[in-house]
């Protein structure tokens, strides 16, 4: 029975003075300056040359993928795409601070994390072309990746739903006795959803070892952050829930790496959630369906282009003597070829068989779905030429 409700000598005031300046006191963690030079006071986390280069590769690959697919969408080869461009630092470096048994739940703009985890060009392409090799069986729109083997939860379009789920997943990890966390990404727009509130508060109360990583990239489609919330970000909310909170320069991959590493350590050691707010910018359009020129200036974009996280990391590598220009160029052109080839291979792979349409609704298709499938198959037999059956074993 609880009996600890009587506040022990609360802090009193006797003047009616609303607190209104709470928002501006939250500092931003920065480790590398825009030229990739560590700040003097910064204590950099340990990071091997190999890992530093792997981070760079993942960032660059992510950008190459984005460029490739935006072009592919313009060519009409794929219906939809959504780029990570500008946010690779925040994503790749945070994922690099996780262990492989940590679960990652993403919103949709975090393909860099999947790249870090080892998702292959071909795997990306199979999903993007909705073919039968896509583990989702081509059921979802492009960019809704998911891979059980990589502990990367399949993406779901409804915003913020993954936030309370991450709390629950992390609670389950804790109960299973795993030294693992759930890393949950979302945008500053998604943070307006009720699910954000529910998830963060539950995680705090139920002591769930999860990292909630908000990419504050300034926009939710066309809606600028200042029409999304009052103040300069959402870090202040973490404090409101009694959650340990870090605001980080999201374009500084070193700061993101350090912050996530520390957050993971605390989350496991203290069995508690942490909120990280990555201050960054969406350099690309929201998606291939969007044109940002309708709602923001070139000038603004230019300012952020100069804060490119990928370049900043490259400068850092250069300073460490870890950047080999020629090797990098060669790697990059190989990657471009690999991507192109993977795309060519994936786009001709048939879609899943018609029979798969009723799979995975339930564990085992119930009678009514079997009946509906039979009816559909009979219909297709009656009209063999009416449908473009690029289905496995059927249309070919």
């Amino acid at each position, binding site marked *: 029975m609880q009996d600890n409700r009587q506040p022990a000598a609360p802090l009193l005031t006797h003047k009616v003075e609303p607190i209104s300046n709470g928002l501006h006191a939250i500092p931003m963690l920065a480790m590398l300056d825009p030229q990739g030079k560590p700040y003097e006071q910064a204590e950099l986390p340990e990071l091997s040359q190999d890992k530093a280069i792997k981070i760079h590769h993942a960032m660059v690959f992510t950008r190459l993928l984005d460029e490739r697919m935006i072009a592919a969408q313009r060519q009409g080869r794929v*219906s*939809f795409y959504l780029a990570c461009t500008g946010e690779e630092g925040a994503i790749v470096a945070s994922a690099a601070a996780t262990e492989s048994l940590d679960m990652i739940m993403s919103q949709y703009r975090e393909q860099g994390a999947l790249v870090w985890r080892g998702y292959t060009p071909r795997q990306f392409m199979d999903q993007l072309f*909705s*073919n039968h090799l896509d583990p989702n*069986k*081509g*059921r*979802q*729109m492009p960019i*809704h990746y998911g891979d059980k083997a990589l502990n990367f939860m399949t993406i*779901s*379009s*409804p*915003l913020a739903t993954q936030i309370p789920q991450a709390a629950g997943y992390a609670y389950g990890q804790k109960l299973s006795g795993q030294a693992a966390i759930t890393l949950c990404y979302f945008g500053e*727009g*998604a943070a*307006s*959803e*009720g*699910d954000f509130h529910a998830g963060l508060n539950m995680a705090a109360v139920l002591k769930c070892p999860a990292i909630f990583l908000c990419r504050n990239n300034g926009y*939710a*489609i*066309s*809606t600028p952050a200042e*029409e*999304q*919330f009052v103040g300069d970000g959402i870090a202040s909310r973490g404090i409101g829930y009694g959650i340990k909170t870090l605001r980080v320069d999201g374009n500084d991959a070193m700061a993101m790496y350090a912050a996530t590493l520390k957050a993971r350590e605390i989350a496991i050691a203290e069995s508690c959630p942490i909120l990280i707010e990555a201050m960054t910018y969406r350099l690309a359009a929201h998606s291939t*369906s*969007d044109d940002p020129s*309708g*709602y923001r200036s070139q000038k603004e974009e230019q300012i952020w282009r100069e804060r490119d996280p990928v370049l900043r990391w490259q400068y850092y590598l250069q300073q460490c003597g870890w950047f080999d220009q020629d090797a990098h160029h060669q790697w990059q052109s190989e990657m471009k070829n690999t991507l192109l080839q993977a795309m060519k291979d994936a786009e001709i792979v048939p*879609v*899943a068989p*018609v029979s*798969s*349409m*009723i799979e995975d*609704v339930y564990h085992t298709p119930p009678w*009514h*779905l079997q009946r*509906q*499938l039979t009816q*559909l198959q009979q*219909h*297709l037999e*009656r*009209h063999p030429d*009416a*449908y*473009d059956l690029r*289905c496995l074993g059927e249309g070919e």
Partner: protein
Amino acid sequence: MAKMNLLQAVNHALQTAMEADEKVLVFGEDVGHFGGVFRATSHLQEKFGKTRCFNTPLTEQGIVGFANGLASQGHKPVAEIQFADYIYPAFDQIVNETAKARYRSGGQFECGNLTIRAPYGGGIAGGHYHSQSPESFFTHVPGIRVVIPRGPYQAKGLLLSAINSPDPVIFFEPKRLYRAAVGEVPEESYQLPLGIAEVLREGTDISLVAWGAQVEVIVKAADMAAEKGISCEVIDLQSLLPWDLETVATSVTKTGRLLINHEAPVTSGFGAEIAASIQQECFLSLEAPISRVCGLDTPFPLAHEKLYMPDHLKTFDAIVACVNY
């Protein structure tokens, strides 16, 4: 008269309503300066200012909650839900609040002035979450109206009625017709009655009922059937709650047969209610079981979208089966 697509008709209706009554407010995610992701609210902020047309934070439950408050205060909110697939976070505000506000207060307070607009339906390669047709959920909610236009003329006339209706209205817009459906639309204000179906084509052998984007599907199937000598009566339901039982029953009494087509999964789709009511109403006239040509009972798929859809071919086959029963 002007040639407009469905999107322009919606935009025109909103502009007309905002001009006529300064109590009309338009808001939702990205509807402000940008004019909405489909551009249904284009130029409204420019014309009517930021207080009357504005972006909201990204929270559907908040949007409808806010709109409920505004409506009960005496304004006429027209709230946009960016996709019908994202209306569920607002389900509690709609089902427990919008719909019950008048009843629970004995008519003292109500949200009758509220209109909720949302693009719905498949056909745009949207997969699970940009294709849903959730209208049936809302037909089980006494206190709200559910309205779906099939084309530009209906979109403007029905939306203006919805905005001016003393009852809250959920207005689903068939997004695959946003640009595809083009027609003549009066430039002046006009209203089409809510709760009333429209008989698009008279026929004698079977009655076909659909709404929204599926109306063109049953029309196409009716054309195919006509070639085979089958005469279809084609009905656009337009309002799903309250719905026009009388028009459908009159038609079925005449034809003796009924086919209902909707995109949503068949189980507990609104076709179920129509079938249940009509078999009650027209029992002695029915010459064949009422047929439902609908989406499968699965989430809306991407790669197999075309197979999933209750298209004209499936409808035509079902017409033939029904007539030959």
